[in-house]
């Protein structure tokens, strides 16, 4: 059973153009469902450790911390530190990694989110069913 959500796509733009957008930790502001993205405490959107607050038009709020940003491997990683309403998982992290497609100077974008915390859900459901029967 997979415990990892993964999606990927080919962007027609050159890697440098895609990376210039996605290395900015406030990039979720581009998403239509997002109302606002703010970097907390006046931190730089490129500083590891910075926390962004994302407010969705639905009213959801999430805080995520930048944990890795590499101009060498063209990857950016963050972890969830707060969610209102609470996430179905206690925490998760995400990584976006870019690869240059040399054949036509486009970009392969991979986004994966390990869901190791699903073990928590297994335990919770197991306990719930065990005590309800």
């Amino acid at each position: 059973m997979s415990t990892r959500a993964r999606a990927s796509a080919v962007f027609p733009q050159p890697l440098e153009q895609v990376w210039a957008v996605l290395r900015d930790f406030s990039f979720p502001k581009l998403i239509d469902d997002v109302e606002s993205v703010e970097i907390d405490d006046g931190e730089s959107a490129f500083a590891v450790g910075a926390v962004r607050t994302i407010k969705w038009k639905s009213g959801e709020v999430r805080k995520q911390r930048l944990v890795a940003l590499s101009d060498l491997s063209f990857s950016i990683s963050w972890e969830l530190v707060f969610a209102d309403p609470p996430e179905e998982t206690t925490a998760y992290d995400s990584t976006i990694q870019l690869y240059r497609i040399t054949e036509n100077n486009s970009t392969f974008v991979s986004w994966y989110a390990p869901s190791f915390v699903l073990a928590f859900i297994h335990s919770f459901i197991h306990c719930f069913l065990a005590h309800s029967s």
Partner: protein
Amino acid sequence: MMHRDSRTYEYSADVSQGLIQFRQAELARTLDELRSKIGH
């Protein structure tokens, strides 16, 4: 006891797979949106 444990595992596995599939669809949709935004 054995029956309950088996049922529990199947149920939790279904929930987990559902979450994974939901999240994958969410990631794919966001990537598609970002691709269109970066292109403009």
